[in-house]
């Protein structure tokens, strides 16, 4: 794959995956 395309793909996918993980972790964090 073209390096620019690969960088854009990885950056975008990471952004979305981090957002999903962050949201679920915070949403279902056990209450103290």
């Amino acid at each position: 794959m073209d390096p620019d395309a690969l960088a854009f793909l990885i950056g975008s996918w990471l952004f979305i995956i981090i957002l999903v993980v962050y949201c679920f972790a915070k949403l279902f964090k056990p209450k103290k």
Partner: protein
Amino acid sequence: MSSLKEREAWATKIGLILSMAGNAVGLGNFWRFPRLLAANGGGAFMIPYFIALLLLGIPLMWVEWATGRYGGKYGHGTLGPMFYVMARESVKPRKALIFAIIGGMLAFSVTTLLNSYYIHVIGWTAAYSIYSATGAYYGADTVNFFFDHVKNFPMVMATWLIPMILLFIAAFRGVSKGIEAFNKVMMPLLYVFAVLLAIRSITIGSPVRPDWSSFTGLNYIWKPDFETLSRNFWVISLAAAGQIFFTLSLGMGIIQNYASYIRKGDDIALSALTTASLNELAEVIIGGSIAIPIAYAYLGPEVVKSGSLGLAFMALPNVFTSMGEVGRFFGTIWFLLLFFAGWTSAIAMYNYLTALLEEDLKINRRIGAVVVFLIYLMLGLPVALDPSLTYFAELDNWVGSYLLVVLGLFDVIVAVWLFKPDNLWKELHEGALMKVPAFFKYVLMVLTPIYILILLVGTTIDYYNQGVFAQADPLIVQARIAIIIILVLGAVETYLAISRKYREELAKNQVIVRAE
């Protein structure tokens, strides 16, 4: 004033998230997104797409969730009365009624007319699931096969009944026992099917020509193409912003309807962001890894870049045929995936109308579910009887695209400006599990409405240049008449619902009714 005592509510947090994600994740993610992406230069499209997501999509999601929960406190599940109680914060009740009527009629037109053809597309996916499993299109010209299918009225109606009966059952059973229960099954299955297809797509190699592979398809999507973008800046930016509206189910009134069933004090800020991010996971990562890469590997760049309606129904069946017997399995799960995606969005529109009958017109939910079934049967018939799809395309031009953006503008006017930004922020943060950065408040006050206005003006000019206004085909005229009639009916219904509940307030022209 008691409201939530009588209103249904989501039973579980995961049920709410999956239902809202089901609402947003629809045919737009797997069918419309690859089509637009392919036709608008791939990597050139993704740049304005992400900008629109951040400046339009996510901020408007917060607005629509806050609008819904606020309206739910007054016992409202439809947009007209929600707009009314919000607009009263800045203008007198009689003026607030005007904004309410605009919001009510727009949401009514979308939930009736958009769903009238959307359910037919879901019916096509049901039919194609069967065709894939039986290998019916193997060896056939898939373009002719598709048009033969839409001309086959008995088959179209029979497969239309599959989603319709399921929609009826879910709406009949109610929010938690119906909609939530169905979403809890369909949404995980949707993600499993989508991941299976995405893995197959990426690992397919170069089955036809060495220079055609799924990776060259991914390259097309992800290579930042500033040159194409600068040459077609407006067209691509408008398509990207329009897709953000469609994919997140914004400007329809259905996010607000689902949010109205959230209990007072439950989080909406983080839940809205979770829904948006789940939608993007389905659209960009999974959706973007299926149709285009797989079609690129089997059919080559020219077919992909043509970006026709046929990518899902005409091009991909060729791919499944080329896979041989295993293609039957992948074809079936592809169309089942589309079925689940479409159905979980259609139920939100079905429920909007059921809530409208139940709350605004005091018709029992179960009887309301039957009435809505009959409404969709009546409104869907012209779609089924027009195999040229002219009527369908005209409805899609207006209620499936243009009016969503108009309603998005009124979202900002009413829920941000008239309700006042501080009130919106307070509502958004009631019970919130996250703090939304204050930066987004200013985005919503200034940037989002400017963005929407540019989108509206640009789309109007685009329609004018394409000659959309000058078209006089009888089916196009028929579609426009249907839209006008539905808008008028929506306006009358909203007026009646509000004037019945807020009679005294409107007579005195001062705010009397307040939620607890």
